[in-house]
């Protein structure tokens, strides 16, 4: 009996821990189940949060950053969620989602839409600022820009442009620019080759959507055509090591520009040059001055030389996000050789052809005031002759600009153009007249994706 009691006690003693362990296991199971529920709840909450757009006003709760002397933690990147993977990929996302380790250039798209209203007789004569597009709303320039490094020595930019040039026709697509810049040449030089907007003066290099006005200044359109001077060739810039900024440029191009040159061959190339400097008048004031030259051969196989002068001043009070006052001015002087038939004996028959020089010029001056971040207003005054034709015109264009954000802009402008009587032949067409032109412009411009910072 004692033996049985001892065995019973021994068994109880032996089983007690097992029972306790079983009890612990039960507790643990309960805790695990509870944790599982919590984890499920957190996962569900996370899923809900990730399915919503990220609110910029609610910051993420980041891990604490290390104190001084602490080792650098490895950079972390959150893996894409199921929603990320499921959401459709747009081309825009190529730019935005580039990250460390991805080899990709920058991509941007700009859209520039212009509407204009003018008199019926101006529309008939097709003598408005946007010739052939009078009283129309049209896509002037929708541009796809791709830019980035080619290798450690060169960068490239490619811009493909679509726009409606002529009323009622399909929107045409063209190569606006494609150029390579060699960045690592010695002695402060850089070279660029390809198709480019020439650095002739201030405004020629600026694309339509980036201009401070709805339209390109009259003098630039009259002497270089509606798109300005865009050429294929190469140019070299030199920035000497001086205490002040000077940039010298020399280029050689085909001379495709039909308005002033037009030979389009390297046998009779277009040579370009520019010198610009910058005067920093304290932190708030800046003045850029420059002089340009373009010398080539026109369609008559005679020489044309155009000289240009530019000045641009900005007053940006200290700490302001935008300039308060911007003054811009450019002037052009064209020396164009032309063939002129001379009737020596006044018998109505040309006796000989003489080469003469037609020296014509033009200029514009513009003022812009931007008292608020979103609003700016200003005006531009134009006076210009024509490269070969007689006569002249002047115009004044007040405007107001509104930016809802950095990437969206609206502009409203009025333009009055007055042309001299000698222009009658050129502008009184199709039974209409464009000697006096009044126009109202509306412009809407957007930028999507990458857009490089604008130079001064």
């Amino acid at each position: 009996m004692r033996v049985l009691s001892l065995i019973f006690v021994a068994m109880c003693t032996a089983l007690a821990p097992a029972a306790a362990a079983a009890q612990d296991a039960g507790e643990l199971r309960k805790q695990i189940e509870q944790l599982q529920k919590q984890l499920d709840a957190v996962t569900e909450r996370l899923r809900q949060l990730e399915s919503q757009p990220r609110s910029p006003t609610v910051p993420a709760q980041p891990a604490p950053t290390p104190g001084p002397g602490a080792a650098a933690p490895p950079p972390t990147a959150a893996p894409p969620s199921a929603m990320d993977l499921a959401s459709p990929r747009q081309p825009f996302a190529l730019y935005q989602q580039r990250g460390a380790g991805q080899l990709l250039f920058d991509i941007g798209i700009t859209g520039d839409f212009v509407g204009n209203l003018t008199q019926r007789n101006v529309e008939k004569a097709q003598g408005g600022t946007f010739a052939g597009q009078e009283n129309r709303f049209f896509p002037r320039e929708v541009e796809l820009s791709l830019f980035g490094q080619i290798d450690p020595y060169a960068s490239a930019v490619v811009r493909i442009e679509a726009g409606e040039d002529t009323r009622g026709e399909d929107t045409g697509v063209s190569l606006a620019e494609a150029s390579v810049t060699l960045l690592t040449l010695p002695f402060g030089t850089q070279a660029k080759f390809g198709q480019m907007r020439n650095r002739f003066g201030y405004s020629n290099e600026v694309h339509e959507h980036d201009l401070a006005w709805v339209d390109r200044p009259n003098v630039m359109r009259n002497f270089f055509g509606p798109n300005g001077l865009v050429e294929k060739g190469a140019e070299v810039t030199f920035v000497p090591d001086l205490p002040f900024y000077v940039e010298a440029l020399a280029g050689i191009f085909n001379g495709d520009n039909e308005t002033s040159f037009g030979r389009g061959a390297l046998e009779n190339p277009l040579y370009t040059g520019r010198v610009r400097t910058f005067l920093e008048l304290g932190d708030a004031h800046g003045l850029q001055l420059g002089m340009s030259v373009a010398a080539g051969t026109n369609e008559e196989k005679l020489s044309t030389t155009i000289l240009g002068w530019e000045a641009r001043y900005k007053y940006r009070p200290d700490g302001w996000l935008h300039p308060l006052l911007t003054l811009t001015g450019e002037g052009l002087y064209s020396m164009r050789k032309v063939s002129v038939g001379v009737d020596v004996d006044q018998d109505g028959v040309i006796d000989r052809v003489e080469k003469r020089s037609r020296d014509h010029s033009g200029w514009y001056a513009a003022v812009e005031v931007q008292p608020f971040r979103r609003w700016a207003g200003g005006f531009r005054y134009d006076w210009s002759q024509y490269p070969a034709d007689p006569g002249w015109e002047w115009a004044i264009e007040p405007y107001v600009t509104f930016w809802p954000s950095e990437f969206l802009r609206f502009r409203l402008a009025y333009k009055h153009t007055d042309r001299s009587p000698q222009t009658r032949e050129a502008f009184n067409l199709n039974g209409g007249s464009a000697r006096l032109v009044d126009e109202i412009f509306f412009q809407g411009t957007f930028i999507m994706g990458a857009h490089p910072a604008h130079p001064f």
Partner: protein
Amino acid sequence: MRRVIVLLLLAALLASTSSPPAASAADKIRVVATIPDLKALAEEVGGKLVDVEALARGNQNAHELEVRPSLMLKLRRADILLENGLDLDTWADVVVQGANNPNIVRGAPGRVDVSRGIHVLEVPSTRVDRSMGDVHPLGNPHYSLDPGTAPIVTQNIVEAFARFAPDRRAEFERNRQAFLSRLDEAMAKWARTMEPLKGAKVVVYHPQWIYLLTRFGLNQAATLEDRPGIPASPAQVTRVIRQMKDEQIKVLIVEPWNDLKLASRVADEAGAKAVVLASMVGGVKGADTYIAAIDHNVNALAQALR
């Protein structure tokens, strides 16, 4: 004679293209930093061995710098360009392009992104687009406002300087350690100052303070900007005032370059204070060094929160 000229030209060409040029004892390394914070840190590390300039000024918005040719002039002779990175100073590419200096083009040894190794905050975890404002796809770039990132940034600067003057590495490292010791002392003081205020909520004008707030345990409750870089709409202003009142938020942090008038009006209506902090070294009076700038920010915040 012609051969001599050709040889001289070749020698000049080789001399100008060899990189990186080792700095002699007499030569200082010419350093340009995109923002004043990096200039201040580079001066601490480089000491008398470097000449440092900054492209942006302390009271400017480093996101949108006006690209002046005078900035290109600063880069014309630079050996090293220190960039903040994380898409804050992308305008530097345009400045570099106009400087005609092969030492600092992308990929050159003189082009240094000092954000390497930083624990970046607010890296978007979902697809981002500009409906969210001017968001930074690579994360919040204002890490230099957290003194805790200085060890990593200065380490990157030491590596960059040592590439140009390998024989001076020890001196750069000594300078760095001396600076970090001073920073450690200051950090202990700042931690003591901010300890009682941990968990306090603040509103910021532009979301650039998360590194500083995280360092000292403060919470960013809202931004006055509608979304990053988008000016505050009247509805947003009303919303923020209501939130500040409801949650008894005492402080609205404003950058020196932002609209102080609006910030003051919002703070007044919410019964709070608008506090101008140095968004970069030199942003406010007295914040002329890195430690002085952080010191100003911590003291101004603590005073306003008490």
